Structure formats: C-alpha cells, structure tokens
C-alpha cells in the first residue's frame, strides 16, 4: 500500500514535467502591434470572462459597442496570411491547441476577418 502511494505521488509530481516536455509551444504572432484592450497578462487570464459577459450583455440586453467585441478582436488578430484566427498560426487556435481547450465559438461565429457586409443594404436589394 505504501509503495503504491509513493509510486502514485511520483507520477503526479513528474507528470507536469513529462507533459510539458513534449508539446510544442504555441507561436503567438501579433499582426497589428499596439494596444490591446487590456494588458497581455490580464488578457491571457481574463479574456474568456470578458467575452462571456460581453456576449450576454449584447445578446440578451442588446448593448452594442462594448470594449470586448469578438468581431473587433478578429479584425485585429486575424493572421495576415490566412485571414482567420484559426488554423496554422491562428491567433486563437495556437494557444487553445496548446492548452487543449476546445474552441466552441467558431461553430457559429465567423473566424475570418474583414467579411463585414458593409454596404450590404444595397447588395440586399434596397432602393436608395
């Protein structure tokens, strides 16, 4: 019994070392250097909370133009090469793959930048 516990403790203590030894670090490429809406450390820790509260305020209360706007994040952070925040060197994808946290947003949200339908009223057939 004692040997089992010692063995288990050894595995648990060594596991993080073993695990991190293998996975490749994410490549974080900032396409548009400048100020994000908050410092990097705060963004890393809090971006999910920021997005979640913003989404509830926008979705349920109709409040628009909040600081943590997902579309604005995408427009700034999308890779210049691929045009999206997913895939290889995708800003969201890289860290989330490393951290093994599934990205649920993109089933519904558009990950490609610059697809805003500006002027779409005319395209939709509206008369001036």
């Amino acid at each position, binding site marked *: 019994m004692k040997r089992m516990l010692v063995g288990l403790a050894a595995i648990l203590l060594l596991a993080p070392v073993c695990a991190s030894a293998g996975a490749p670090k994410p490549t974080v490429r900032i396409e*548009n*250097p*400048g*100020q994000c809406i908050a410092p990097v450390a705060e963004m890393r820790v809090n971006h999910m909370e920021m997005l979640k509260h913003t*989404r*509830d*305020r926008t*979705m*349920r*209360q*109709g*409040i*628009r*133009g*909040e*600081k943590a*706007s997902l*579309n*604005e994040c*995408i*427009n*700034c952070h999308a890779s210049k090469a691929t045009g999206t925040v997913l895939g290889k060197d995708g800003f969201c994808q890289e860290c989330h793959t490393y951290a093994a946290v599934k990205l649920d947003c993109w*089933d*519904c*949200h*558009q990950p490609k*930048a*610059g*697809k*805003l*339908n*500006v002027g*779409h*009223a005319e*395209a*939709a*057939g*509206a*008369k001036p």
Partner: protein
Amino acid sequence: MNQPQDKSRRSFVGTAAIAGAGLGTLALAPGLQLIQVSEANTPTAGASSKVRWGMLIDTTKCASGCDACVKACATENGINETVKDPRQGSQWIRKIDLKNPKTGQEHSLPMLCQHCANPPCVDVCPTGASMKRADGIVLVDRHICIGCRYCMLACPYKARSLVHMPLTEQNPEVPRGQGCVESCTFCVQRVDKGLKPACIEACPEGAMLFGDLNDPNSAIAQRVAKEKTTQVRGDLQLNLGVRYQGI
C-alpha cells in the same frame, strides 16, 4: 515643450491630441472601421421595453412570384449554405402562396417569425435560449441552445429552422451554426444601428412596413390604429408583432 497658459488653448491641444491618437490607432490597426472605433468607446444603452418593434404587411401589394424579401434576408444574414435536401434548409422568411379552393382566388404573402409578445417558443425552451428581448424581438441565444427542437414543435408559424450542417461563411454580425435552432431576428444587427430589416428595404412593392408599435408617431402605429389588420392564428392570442392586411 510648449506650456499652454489659458484653458481654451489647453482644451484645443487636448482635443487635437485625442484626434491624433484616434487616427494613429487607425493607422496601427488597419481594417477597423471608423464607426466601430467610436462605438467601442461608448456602449449603447441596449434594448428598451419602451419600444416594441413590429411589422405591417399589406398582402394586397405582395406580388406573386416575387421573392425579393427572401433573397435579401439570405444575403443580409449569411444564409448561403448548399443543402442536399431542401427540406433541411433554413428559411427565416418565405413566400406562401394561398389559394381558396372554393373560389379560386389566389394571393401570396411573406411568412416569418411573428415576434409574439407571448411566444410559445420561449415558454418551451428548456435552457432559456429562446428569448424575447426587452424591445419585443424574439431571438435564439445560440450560446445556450442545445438543439432540442422543442421550440420548432411549439411554433405555430413554422418560423424556426435547425441548422443541419457545419457552416463556414457566416456574416460576422449574424453568428449561426450547426446544431442550433434559428429564426428571423428582425435583422437585429441592423435595427440596433437604426436601420430597417433587409426584407423591408428590398420589397419592390412597398408592401412591408417596419417600426415601433409603441410610438404613436411612427408610421406603423398610426396605420395599425386607423386600418384593419389581422394576426395569423389570432385565436391563439399570442399578441403578434407582425400584422397582415388583405388576408
């Protein structure tokens, strides 16, 4: 280096500095629209219960065979996926052709989510994803929709569609995706900017009118007060936001 002494010069320099910083931000972050930068600093107040958005459709003006409203909706809301089985395709608005079998009289009308004041879809949704916003617009919060389709069973107007396949070409302002149920949103992304829904603007016959039913000065409120309008399946007493004429 320069030390402004009086208030007016200080405030002018301050304003110029802010403007310069704003332009500088634009230079640093290409692709950002000017309208979004200014909006990002001042969130809107959100939907208000003082407003009740509604639609008035004069079916006597609706041309049979015309589906401009349907196409406009699909363009605006990014409903552009190819479906193998058309019965599995999403339709937020569709044209219904009616024929009276006894008299032979025919006419057509657009059918969409009626944005009920007492929506059955909101009552039956297990997670509360199907919701009514304060201003009367009935929406699906796809963050918590589990795709159970109970709202589709409960809707008397067949307004709701399930997305049967993965989507990739959504409009960024209209998130929609596989496994969630969706329906007409009165183009909420346009309404929140002070615009009208795409179908309203596209109708070549001017058969569709949109506005605030609670505002006595709005065109729609005045017409609804003066003219006779009907609600489809009015027997259900759902107090609809969409009123029809000519049926």
